[in-house]
């Protein structure tokens, strides 16, 4: 077999069903072998779209997403998508063509040092210099990408290696002596964890993307119900715990609910599961949760005591550890008083907005929630649209909210929706977008239409780069610098791509437009003209303690 064939055979052995990619000169042998392979290939319109689509596919399924690009500019166009996946611990395998191995370092046409460029934004990467190593490399790449704390792995393959003839030997097992993720909690630490929980009077579960990655959502729910602790989550943790559950506090942090922020600040025990105390969550670090002991469950030892001093760390897989804790936990804490306080906060500081005048974005999200009965997969762009989507849609299931959290990548939502829809053709997939973000990867509408990947795009069109405008309003004396962004006629644009466009300017038309969009068997874009200067509240100014919220109405 030649290298290209070995690659495809190896991908199939890894259970790959779809590749998101874009052709180019240095992947020609792979493209040629793909011609005969029974592997779905989604041809995107920009390599960044391929990376985000693979990412969306991975987040929607838990399986590694695969993207392919040629050398040089093809590979560098993947970079933003790879970095996005890296920050959010998404399993992904990126395959790039490289100039012929004997030309490497010669400044050949379309040459770039791709392993060098992607080293800090991949969990690991490979430059394959011999086709004999290819099968093992693919095996290792998938193992590394999807085990431990997942992440993207890149395989760079020179085109002469793709043509090199060698025997195909599939390694049945994979053994990397220097890589052995810890999966189970240390028994001593589990005991200590249980002791902390038993003694707590005001515990709170603070959960992140790790719960979803590990598939720990059910056991998390069991633990929360057993100890009756309220649960708050990070942006990445949305869906890890049912939003409609009575113990749910919603998202915390910069744009979290007031009651979640009050609760974590007042707690005497934070049970952190698969979350990393990001600055958007903790706010000012020295005033964060001053009275709380911290129990931190995470698979990545470097997440522990990185930002916040941890009292009891338990390293390992969240699902295993929560199970071990449930088994070990004998004495339950008495926290009825605490729950009452939390309930009071909930009543006193609900999420709210003034629903009057021009269409409010929050209203649009609420209507989306009702129209889809909370069953859709929502992807988002980045900015205000993302925060409203996080606040006002209620996610009861894991892998239904797909958003670029760590890197905050505008242009993520549409291609990620493509990936999610390819993974779950039977589900409604909606990209909640802004008029700024959507323009960053709008070309992927063509990918949707050509491949009949019928996603729905709802643009919350306010004519601004809204989140930056909000900061300028609040912290730069309303000096709106470079945030007034013009857009094309989105309806006409959708139509020219062969999609369906709907224009909405009145509140009373919102629901009808959504219902129509859900009904139409095509990619549909709703251009929804919203209140131009609506802000995301509550808001914790950067560097403030997280209970020092600005809230538009309170």
């Amino acid at each position, binding site marked *: 077999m030649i290298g290209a064939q070995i690659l495809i055979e190896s991908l199939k052995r890894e259970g790959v069903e779809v590749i998101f990619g874009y052709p180019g000169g240095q992947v020609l042998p792979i493209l040629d072998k793909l011609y005969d392979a029974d592997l779905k290939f989604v041809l995107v319109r920009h390599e960044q779209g391929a990376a985000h689509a693979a990412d969306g596919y991975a987040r929607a399924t838990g399986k590694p997403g695969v993207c392919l690009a040629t050398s040089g500019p093809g590979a560098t166009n993947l970079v933003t998508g790879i970095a996005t996946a890296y920050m959010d611990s998404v399993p992904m395998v990126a395959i790039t063509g490289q100039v012929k191995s004997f030309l490497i370092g010669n400044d050949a046409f379309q040459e770039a040092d791709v*392993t*060098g460029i992607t*080293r*800090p934004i991949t*969990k*690991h990467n490979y*430059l394959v210099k011999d086709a004999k190593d290819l099968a093992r490399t693919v095996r290792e790449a998938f193992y*590394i990408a999807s085990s431990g704390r997942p992440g993207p792995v890149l395989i760079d393959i020179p085109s002469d290696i793709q043509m090199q003839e060698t025997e195909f030997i599939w390694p049945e097992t994979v053994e*990397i*002596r*220097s*890589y052995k993720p810890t999966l189970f909690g240390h028994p001593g630490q589990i005991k200590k964890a249980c002791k902390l929980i038993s003694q707590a009077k005001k515990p709170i579960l603070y959960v992140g993307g790790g719960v979803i990655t590990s598939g720990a959502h059910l056991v998390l729910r069991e633990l929360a119900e057993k100890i009756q602790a309220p649960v708050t989550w990070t942006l990445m943790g949305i869906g890890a715990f049912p939003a409609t559950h009575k113990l749910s506090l919603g998202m915390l942090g910069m744009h979290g609910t007031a009651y979640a922020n009050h609760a974590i600040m007042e707690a005497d025990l934070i049970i952190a599961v698969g979350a990393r105390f990001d600055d958007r969550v903790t706010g000012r670090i020295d005033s964060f949760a001053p009275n709380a002991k911290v129990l931190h469950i995470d698979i*990545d*030892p*470097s997440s*522990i*005591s*990185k930002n916040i001093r941890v009292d009891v760390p338990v390293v390992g897989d969240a699902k295993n550890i929560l199970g071990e804790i449930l088994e070990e936990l004998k004495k339950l804490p008495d926290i009825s008083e605490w729950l009452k306080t939390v309930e009071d906060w909930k009543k006193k500081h609900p999420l709210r907005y003034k629903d009057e005048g021009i269409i409010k974005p929050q209203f649009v999200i609420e209507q989306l929630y009702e129209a889809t009965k909370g069953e859709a997969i929502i992807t988002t762009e980045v900015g205000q649209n993302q925060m409203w989507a996080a606040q006002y849609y209620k996610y009861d299931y894991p892998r239904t909210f797909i958003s670029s959290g760590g890197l905050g990548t505008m242009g993520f939502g549409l291609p990620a929706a493509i990936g999610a829809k390819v993974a779950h053709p039977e589900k409604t997939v909606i990209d909640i977008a802004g008029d700024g973000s959507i323009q960053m990867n709008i070309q992927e509408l063509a990918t949707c239409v050509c491949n009949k990947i019928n996603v729905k795009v709802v643009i919350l069109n306010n004519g601004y780069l809204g989140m930056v405008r909000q900061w300028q309003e609040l912290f730069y004396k309303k000096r709106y610098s470079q945030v007034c962004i013009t857009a094309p006629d989105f309806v006409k644009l959708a139509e020219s791509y062969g999609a369906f466009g709907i224009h909405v300017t009145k509140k009373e038309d919102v629901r009808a437009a959504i219902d129509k969009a859900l009904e139409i068997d095509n990619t549909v874009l709703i251009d929804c003209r919203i209140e131009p200067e609506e802000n995301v509240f509550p808001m914790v100014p950067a560097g403030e303690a997280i209970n020092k919220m600005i809230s538009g109405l309170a």
Partner: protein
Amino acid sequence: MKHTISVLVENKFGVLARVAGLFSARGYNIASLAVSETLEPSISYMTIVVEAKDEAILEQIKKQLNKLIDVISVTDFTKKEHVDRELILVKVDYSPKYKAKLEKLFKKYVGKIIQKKGCTAIIEAVGDQKQIRGLLESLSEFGIKELVKTGRVALGH
């Protein structure tokens, strides 16, 4: 404060770049770095002297190193019995007026002259931090023309 750590890594191309990249990306400082193959040719041994202003940062450095796929193990010598050495080569003035004085110096300090040419001599010295510092201080009066250090290597029990 400076800490000496050793790192066993896979002896593959790009591994040094991964380690160096980690330090620069996270804003840690490398004071010195020495790398060589071990008896097992597939493994390299790195001795890294890092500057960390507190325990938490040192802890992060070790954890981040361990996170690299090609890192096999990390040993921190801060609280561990070990020996460390570095080798220096120093070019000094060897004119007649210094000759005798210089020869005498080596009775007290580590080091020896390994090459003489005209009015200069090259001195080789192997020692721990304190010994090397002592030698360099006393050599300064002879006029150090050039100095090169290997960086520290360390071995624990």
